[in-house]
């Protein structure tokens, strides 16, 4: 906490030559905005979903007044990012920028698509991505400078997600190609979403159920620790697709010889091998962090607990686990973010999940379909990482 404080203070302190105080990150953001406005296309227009695209710069992509308004706001933010140091002001300007930029993308899609043309596609292009990157950087930087506590970060996340949901529900983006892809397969989207979450969250939960007790036992027994860590370390080195492949043969054999297993849906391809592979990848961080967490529990506290007559169980639950919890939660954070990403690959062996759209899209050279799978995956990882980060802080946090 202290080092973070002093680092931010150093950032906030006046530079040695306070004649012309320029914010370095702000300068980078301003350059990004400049490139986005004047040297990059804002959107791409395609006659059909797999046709090659034509770039449209900002003034072509939007009605004149909208384009001018967006450009003015963006330029204002660029200047503000360089000279305004108050984090609240920076945050407000970035939020304003996003509030103008995100809906205008939807307007652009409506503007570029000829009336009654259901085949034409409009996708955001480099200029849009650079602008949203610049504004998001500004938001993240401002939030970091405000040094939000865990609850503040969760609240900021909720606000951001709420705004995103509002944009999606309002229909303002409906003319964008990704949403067109979504509307043609809304049913399968939610089915794969459920499958994706089931794979990632379920395998993480199962890894905790197995990994935490295994970590506790390994912490106690040196010989077990060496064996377990070596075995799990080997699993970590197997590439994911190879591991899926390796699991096909034994699971196929199980399905063929055990009717009950087959009845439960366990077979060589599908969700079962994907689940098991994710579980195996998840075990290493969980076990390693459980061991690390228990090892950093102050030996004196454990000795005192023993001396006061706490049983082994009371020591574990009352002293060792609470003190190891932040490190174990950090392991769960790694695993959850990792598995949300890895679950994409499950689609390759018929396991379902958002990967289904990614691989279908690659097969059809339909980039919009790839994004329909990729963007929700990235969003989920992002949300999971912020939520678990906040939980780690809360578990560490002795309320001051």
């Amino acid at each position, binding site marked *: 906490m202290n080092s973070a404080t002093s680092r931010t203070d150093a950032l906030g302190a006046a530079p040695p030559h306070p004649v012309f105080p320029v914010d370095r990150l702000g300068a980078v953001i301003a350059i990004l905005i400049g490139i986005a406005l004047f040297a990059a296309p804002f959107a791409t227009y395609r006659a059909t979903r797999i046709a090659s695209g034509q770039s449209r710069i900002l003034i072509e992509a939007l009605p004149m007044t909208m384009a001018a308004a967006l450009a003015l706001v963006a330029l204002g933010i660029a200047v503000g990012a360089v000279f305004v140091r108050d984090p609240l002001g920076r945050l407000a300007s970035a939020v304003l920028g996003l509030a103008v930029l995100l809906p205008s993308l939807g307007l652009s899609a409506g503007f570029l698509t000829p009336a009654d043309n259901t085949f034409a596609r409009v996708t955001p292009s480099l200029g849009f991505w650079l602008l949203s990157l610049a504004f998001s950087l500004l938001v993240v930087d401002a939030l970091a400078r405000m040094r939000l506590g865990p609850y503040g970060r969760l609240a900021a996340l909720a606000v951001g997600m709420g705004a995103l949901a509002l944009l999606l529900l309002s229909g303002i983006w409906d003319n964008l190609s990704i949403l067109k892809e979504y509307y043609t397969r809304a049913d399968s989207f939610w089915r794969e979403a459920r499958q994706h979450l089931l794979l990632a969250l379920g395998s993480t939960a199962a890894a905790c159920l197995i990994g935490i007790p295994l970590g506790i036992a390994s912490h106690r027994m040196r010989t077990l620790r060496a064996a377990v860590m070596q075995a799990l370390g080997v699993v970590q080195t197997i590439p994911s697709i190879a591991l899926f492949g390796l699991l096909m043969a034994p699971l196929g054999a199980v399905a063929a010889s055990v009717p009950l297993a087959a009845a439960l849906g366990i077979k060589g391809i599908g969700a079962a091998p994907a689940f098991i592979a994710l579980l195996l990848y998840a075990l290493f961080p969980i076990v390693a962090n459980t061991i690390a967490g228990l090892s950093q529990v*102050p030996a*004196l*506290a*454990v*000795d*005192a*607990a*023993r*001396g*006061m*007559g*706490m*049983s082994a169980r*009371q020591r574990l639950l009352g*002293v060792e686990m*609470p*003190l190891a919890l932040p490190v174990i939660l950090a392991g769960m954070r790694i695993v959850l973010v990792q598995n949300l990403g890895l679950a994409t690959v499950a689609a390759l062996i018929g396991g379902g999940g958002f990967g289904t759209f990614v691989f279908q899209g690659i097969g059809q050279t339909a980039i919009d379909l790839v994004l329909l799978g990729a963007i929700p995956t990235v969003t989920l990882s992002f949300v999971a990482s912020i939520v678990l980060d906040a939980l780690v802080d809360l578990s560490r946090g*002795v309320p001051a």
Partner: protein
Amino acid sequence: MIEIDRLTKRYDATLVVDDVSLVVEEGTLAVIVGTSGAGKSTLLRMINRLVTPTSGRVLIDGEDTRTIPEDELRHRIGYVIQGYGLFPHRNVADNIATVPRLLRWDRRKIAQRVDELLDLFQLDPAEFAQKFPHELSGGQQQRVGVARALAARPALLLMDEPFGALDAVIRSKAQDDLLAIQRRLGTTIVLVTHDLNEAFHLGDRIAVMDQARLLQYATPAELLMRPADDFVERLVGTAERPFRLLSLAKVREALEPGHAEGSPVAASDSLHDALSRLLWTGRRALPVADASGAVIGQVSVDGILRHGRSLP
């Protein structure tokens, strides 16, 4: 009363505690002193069975500790270690409540006991009960550590270098506080230290250990007058001996009739303190006052010097 009866601890070939026997009387404070690695901590930890003896036994009020389940035994014995081992994730009140909770006292009784102990250790409950260990100074942590050990009113308190982490000024205050609390509660205490001054200051009896063996177990005065062997004699320090003796005797014991000038010393002060005052003020004698402040006689340099030689 604690009887340690031929306790031995052996790890493979190394003998850590070798056939030690000693008795600590009810309500007294016994200090185990010795160089590091002498086996004093191991001896202490065999009393609450944190270390299982290789042979020998410990009787507490005549009851063999082997017949009591380990956790139950430890609930009955307070335990304080160097560094205190406070639970960093629990506040002061919860730390102190540890053993009462294990014993399933009801909540009101626990809260009452916590406040009582905080008062006893001069920590304002309103200010300190909700604080976490990292928010306390070293001296406050030490007091919370002792309060936690005393929470379930144990008749016996084991302390392993309890003042080792404190600086000199706070340490002597903490030692005086411990003595005052011990007198008040009548707790039997076994305390391990490597600091001989601490041993002489606190101990009713002192056990000197070296290389796993108990060399001598005696009152401080006996240790000075009749050291059992060369090691003990060197340990108590031949040059320091007369001053240690004076520290053990009270002004009351060298009281003479007569009237001296100057501000009086208390009859309960040590002769060491009185001599120090005399040397510093350059006087031959000072008046002596009793607890109520009334002058009851005088103490002189000559009288003190006679004591320094002839104490039994």
